[in-house]
């Protein structure tokens, strides 16, 4: 069958663009059901101990204050037989707000004030006095608590191969280094928010929640309140960024739902920016890497160990060290990954979780090895190019990384790099070039989708997925429009509603691949239905014709040179108002015989002011092998966004937790620096051709994470080239390079 329009692969303006630029796209805190009241959360000021008293009296006297919920008066139903897990709960027991008087971390939510207006709730919050009994200051510093490191409940990394220790000892060239990455906070621009309405008659919730997957919040609330899932409807049409922070339900959801059910009123709870630092974050991580090579630069051993923080109630894990067994060809590899439980909240996935961390260390180490062996860093990577996945002993479904290296080097002018540090100066600026490889797994999950084609010619496709800014609305509409051969204006894609067909949580860069495949499948089923219906009423034309001969174009079906029949006529002829199909899509069996990854090559230029140490990144080239690019416009946005994240990660981001109280002291956007306009200058994104018939029916690999991977290492490597100083501790602030 042939689709007549050409949307897939074409730069297309976002279908939700007008809503977003006019302020009409509704985000969660903007839903205001009738009789809405406002909740304001109070957080713990100690890291470890218990609450001895909460004085609510003053605040309760403020006119307009409805109730103040604490562990002492929270409805018992949220404690008895309640299940607080969500689909991504790591091993352990999830945090339960207001469960008892125990304080597990600084910033823990300990009370909710509900009032008629936001102003009243915020005012009254200042009148609540809380007394604590501090047990001790808590253990919050990763480096000081390495002796607590454990393998318990931690997934094993890839199996060791060869004998890395011996090979390291016997090698001529070797490097050994320790890298550190601090806590980082997602800080999406939209604060977490929930608006919950309990319907007493129906015994059901209707909830607007900021979440990367409505089914996650649905299951979570159903578990806490012992409800059938169908009794909890979760809606989340627009997400003001999440970057992983919305992969698990956050505490404002619990508070809004609990208060709504208790007060029988709709309740809105929105986090403050400071509260955005009181839940999951990218874990602090200490890594040790040992690499060795022979005279020709061929890697003889790789050893990579990581110590990552987690909370004392859950064992959050991510894939940090496995990349070192995957990225380069090497016979002797040893990997180790341990967790250090601390008195902090459980970390969470954050853009390219694990990958941006592990590859930061590996790709800095590769640069150190390049310096050690005297081989150009790009050449060293080519010498050790992995043609297959040695961790899994499988071929790659596709891997155009060599093309990435070549195209990036051409565009960037890599040949102009001066290997000698401090040898390239422009006025007061030391100039450095650096590069790194990036990689991310191309995953696919089960997903469902529904398509309805009306007799009016409108196509509505739906799936309970999310658009966190990634362009889901747009690319799904493109796929549907192309498959049915109708114009984009006649397609609507619906998402973010738990009543829609179930989709995986949006994360891991798998939405294009998973939901996109479901949308493609549902549309091909729709094609089949149209074909069958057309064949019934137009037996002459369709006699002996197979669907393979059909053309779907301009809202019409034709076979061979036959007259084209509009879909609307086919539907009307059948006496129907619309036709509807629903599918479940799953990864193909064949996929498991291959390793599926996207790859990139990042090259950066940095300038370092000789006197002040201030660093700028005037130029970044990021060449991407990400399979089929569905919409170059939104795809490029994913990559430039990732690069901006990489710059912030490299130069600025650090959650500063005071070890005396476990408190984040820069819990705001003035002192927790993220990249701003002035940090980001020229970024060139190159998509190299990559054909992949295995990864999924679309051949698309997903791009949300890949853009950040390698950027911080490339910057570190460029800083070395500029200054001769190797900085191994993120962020690379000016005092570290001076």
């Amino acid at each position, binding site marked *: 069958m042939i689709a007549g329009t050409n949307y897939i692969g074409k730069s297309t303006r976002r279908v939700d663009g007008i809503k977003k630029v006019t302020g009409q796209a509704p985000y969660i805190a903007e839903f205001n059901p009738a009789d809405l009241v406002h909740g304001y959360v109070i957080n713990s000021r100690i890291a470890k101990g218990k609450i001895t008293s909460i004085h609510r009296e003053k605040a309760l006297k403020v006119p307009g204050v409805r109730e103040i919920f604490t562990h002492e008066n929270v409805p018992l139903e949220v404690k008895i037989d309640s299940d607080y897990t969500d689909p991504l709960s790591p091993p352990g027991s999830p945090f339960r707000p207001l469960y008892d008087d125990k304080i597990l971390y600084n910033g823990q939510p300990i009370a909710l004030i509900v009032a008629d207006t936001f102003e*009243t709730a915020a005012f009254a919050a200042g009148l609540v006095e809380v007394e604590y009994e501090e047990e001790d200051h808590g253990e919050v510093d990763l480096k000081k608590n390495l002796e607590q490191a454990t393998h318990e409940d931690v997934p094993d990394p890839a199996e060791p191969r060869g004998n890395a220790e011996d090979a390291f000892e016997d090698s001529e060239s070797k490097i050994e280094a320790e890298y550190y990455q601090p806590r980082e906070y997602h800080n999406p621009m939209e604060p977490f928010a929930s608006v919950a309405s309990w319907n007493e008659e129906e015994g059901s919730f209707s909830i607007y929640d900021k979440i990367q997957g409505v089914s996650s919040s649905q299951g979570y609330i159903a578990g806490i309140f012992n409800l059938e899932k169908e009794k909890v409807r979760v809606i989340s049409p627009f997400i003001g960024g999440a970057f992983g922070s919305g992969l698990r339900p956050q505490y404002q959801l619990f508070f809004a739902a609990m208060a709504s059910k208790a007060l029988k009123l709709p309740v809105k709870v929105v986090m403050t920016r400071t509260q955005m630092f009181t839940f999951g974050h990218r874990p602090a991580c200490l890594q040790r890497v040992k690499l060795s090579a022979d005279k020709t630069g061929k890697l003889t051993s790789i050893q990579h160990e990581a110590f990552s923080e987690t909370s004392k109630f859950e064992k959050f894990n991510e894939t940090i060290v496995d990349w070192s067994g995957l990225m380069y060809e090497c016979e002797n590899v040893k990997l180790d990954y341990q967790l250090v439980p601390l008195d902090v909240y459980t970390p969470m996935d954050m853009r390219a979780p694990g990958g941006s961390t592990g590859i930061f260390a590996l790709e800095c180490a590769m640069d150190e090895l390049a310096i050690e062996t005297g081989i150009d860093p790009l050449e060293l990577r080519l010498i050790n190019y992995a043609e297959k996945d040695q961790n899994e002993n499988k071929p790659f479904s596709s891997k155009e990384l060599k093309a990435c290296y070549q195209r990036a080097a051409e565009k960037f002018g890599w040949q102009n790099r001066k290997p000698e540090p401090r040898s390239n100066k422009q006025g007061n600026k030391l100039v450095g070039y650096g590069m790194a490889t990036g990689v991310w797994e191309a995953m696919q999950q089960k997903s469902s989708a529904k398509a309805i084609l009306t007799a009016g010619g409108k196509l509505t496709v739906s799936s309970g997925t999310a658009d966190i800014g990634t362009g889901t609305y747009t690319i799904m509409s493109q796929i549907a429009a192309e498959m049915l051969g109708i114009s984009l204006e006649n397609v609507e894609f619906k998402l973010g509603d738990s009543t829609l067909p179930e989709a995986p949580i949006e994360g891991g860069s798998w939405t294009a691949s998973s939901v996109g495949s479901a949308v493609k499948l549902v549309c091909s089923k729709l094609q089949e239905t149209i074909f069958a219906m057309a064949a019934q009423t137009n037996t002459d034309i369709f006699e002996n014709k197979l669907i393979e001969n059909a053309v779907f174009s301009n809202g019409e079906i034709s076979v061979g040179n036959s007259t084209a029949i509009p879909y609307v006529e086919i539907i009307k002829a059948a006496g129907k108002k619309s036709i509807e199909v629903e599918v479940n899509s799953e990864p193909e069996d064949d996929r498991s015989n291959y390793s599926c990854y996207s790859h990139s090559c990042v090259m950066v230029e940095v300038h370092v002011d000789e006197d002040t140490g201030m660093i700028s990144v005037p130029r970044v080239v990021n060449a991407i092998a990400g399979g089929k690019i569905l919409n170059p416009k939104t795809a490029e946005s994913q990559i430039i966004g990732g690069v901006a994240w990489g710059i912030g990660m490299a130069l600025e981001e650090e959650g500063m937790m005071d070890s005396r109280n476990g408190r984040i002291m820069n819990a705001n956007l003035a002192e927790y620096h993220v990249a701003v306009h002035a940090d980001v200058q020229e970024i060139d994104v190159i998509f190299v051709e990559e054909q992949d018939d295995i990864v999924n029916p679309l051949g698309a690999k997903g791009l949300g994470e890949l853009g950040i991977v390698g950027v911080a290492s490339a910057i570190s490597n460029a800083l070395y080239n500029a200054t001769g100083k190797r900085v191994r501790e993120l962020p690379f602030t000016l005092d570290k390079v001076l």
Partner: protein
Amino acid sequence: MEVPKHPETIPLELNINGETVELDISAWTTLLDALREHLQLTGTKKGCDHGQCGACTVLVNGKHINSCFTLAAMQTNKEITTIEGLANGENLHPVQDAFIEHDAFQCGYCTPGQICATVGLLNMKKGNTPEEIRDLMSGNICRCGAYANIYKVVEEMKEKGTEGTTSI
């Protein structure tokens, strides 16, 4: 025990997007909360509530400010323009259209603020070099990292000599 006072409300008149609106709100209500919670003009966003992100940017007498850092009571007798007031009916302001064309946003949450900041910049007639544009736009954080594309919008608007708002 001292009984807390009733949060007093005061009557106010604001001129927003060319219309006069009346409000009866607590004196310490910020312009941002007045817009979002009391007038349902939710296009203006709350990102930090502390002047650290720019999501709440609106134009007052043609100049862009953080609406979270001023009280509604301080903005009477002024012309307030929010994102809802930029388009002319169905016709987008050129800056709005350019944001779509250059894909200068992803999640869209900072976008109204970025657009108002761009319009304010055009009103100021500043931003004549790439460095200056980037510096003057730095009060608007885009966590999705659409900066490179937002820059293209501002550059194009400057090149075309696009008007910001006509009433200043």
